[in-house]
């Protein structure tokens, strides 16, 4: 059976070490914060100028001056720090952030990432901090469904959507398993229960390398 969004998030959290400085994108990546394994602490970065971000604010916790990059009201944890945008993106671009977890439209087997715009001419383009995170974080993890709603595989030989950054993705966590871009094509690191590598090869049209630990 394929993994749920929460199971994907938990799988990502499992791979991030204790004490890591982590930036979580909007959507499925945000769920990673809810699945930090016991005994681990992640320090969350939000690119609008904060380290030590806490969970979403509720009720009286809402402070009009405290939002995350998704413009959601959040809380502050002990040891937090505020800084300006130059410092925040210097931190990203300067490779200080240990992990970022982001969504994607497509990931190519070279590790190219497409996650900032589709090619629709009626959609206003907006890039935000996606390109900075993709080139800057030491480890770029993608969390996404393996297939689009119309059934197309989001792991591709080469991206047809506009690129966010080249050769940046280290791992892709999906509902069907965990994949790693490599020179020989995608390596299949782990499969959700009941998912067969042969079936995936067929749907995706990709030469998948079986790297599932015995």
């Amino acid at each position, binding site marked *: 059976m394929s993994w749920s969004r929460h199971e994907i998030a938990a799988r990502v959290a499992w791979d991030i070490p204790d004490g890591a400085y982590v930036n979580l994108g909007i959507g499925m990546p945000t769920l990673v914060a809810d699945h930090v394994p016991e005994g681990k602490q992640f320090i969350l970065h*939000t690119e*609008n100028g904060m380290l030590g971000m806490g969970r979403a604010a509720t009720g009286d916790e809402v402070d009009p*001056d405290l*939002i995350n990059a998704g413009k959601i009201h959040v809380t502050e944890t002990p040891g937090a720090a*505020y800084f300006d945008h130059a410092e925040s993106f210097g931190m990203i671009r300067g490779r200080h952030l240990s992990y970022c977890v982001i969504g994607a439209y497509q990931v190519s087997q070279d590790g190219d990432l497409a996650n900032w715009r589709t090619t629709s001419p009626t959609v206003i383009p*907006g890039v935000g901090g996606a390109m900075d995170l993709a080139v800057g974080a030491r480890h770029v993890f993608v969390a996404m469904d393996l297939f689009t709603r119309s059934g197309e595989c989001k792991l591709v030989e080469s991206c047809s959507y506009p690129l966010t950054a080249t050769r940046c993705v280290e791992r892709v966590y999906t509902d069907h398993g965990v994949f790693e871009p490599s020179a020989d094509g995608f390596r299949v690191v782990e499969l959700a229960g009941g998912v067969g590598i042969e079936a995936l090869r067929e749907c995706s049209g990709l030469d998948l390398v079986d790297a599932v630990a015995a």
Partner: protein
Amino acid sequence: MAVDKVVPSAAAAVADIGAGATVMISGFGPPGQPDLLIEALYESGVTDLTVINNNAGAGGEAISELFAAKRVRKVVCSFPKAIGSTVFDDLYLAGEIELELVPQGTLAERIRAAGAGVAGFYTPTGYGTELAEGKEVRVLDGRPCVFERPLIADFALVRAHRADTHGNLVYRKTGRNFGPLMAAAAEVTIAEVGGIAEVGAIDPETVVTPGIYVDRVVLGADAGAEDER
């Protein structure tokens, strides 16, 4: 004369922003957005502006009004899409506004470069993407990088938490965002603040924007009785 940068009204503070001016506006979402100054800019009737902001009309009515009234010729930003507003979208799709889309970190660094007298820099961000098309690329330490230039403005409208009469500023939480960068990058910087203190009331160790970058200080609409002088 004792230095005193406090200006009596937002209207007076923005009075010399003329047609064709380039104006930076701080803020990421509502935090750090100088609402009163944006409103005063709208009321002034000034046209043909170039606006540098992280967004393009998101996060506040005042700034959306400025766009809706077609006072903005061009916007330089990282994320023009606004939740719950189609003002920019409609102008853009109708070809009535120019958009320079810049990755958020490059936007911040270009503004910082303008303030810090850095004439240009190379960044890995954007390499190999359509946002770097036509830009010079150079491989440095084995990594292809894109050449970027400073973003300078005639005016910066920034929002801070408190000021003293010398224009020293402190911010509050994620309201800091672009404020300190823009304050340094414009010829004239106008700060809207939640409170004004006598000089000496802000701990010199905690000043974020030193007064050297600030020309005018205006009390925000929300400040009310918060003027501490």
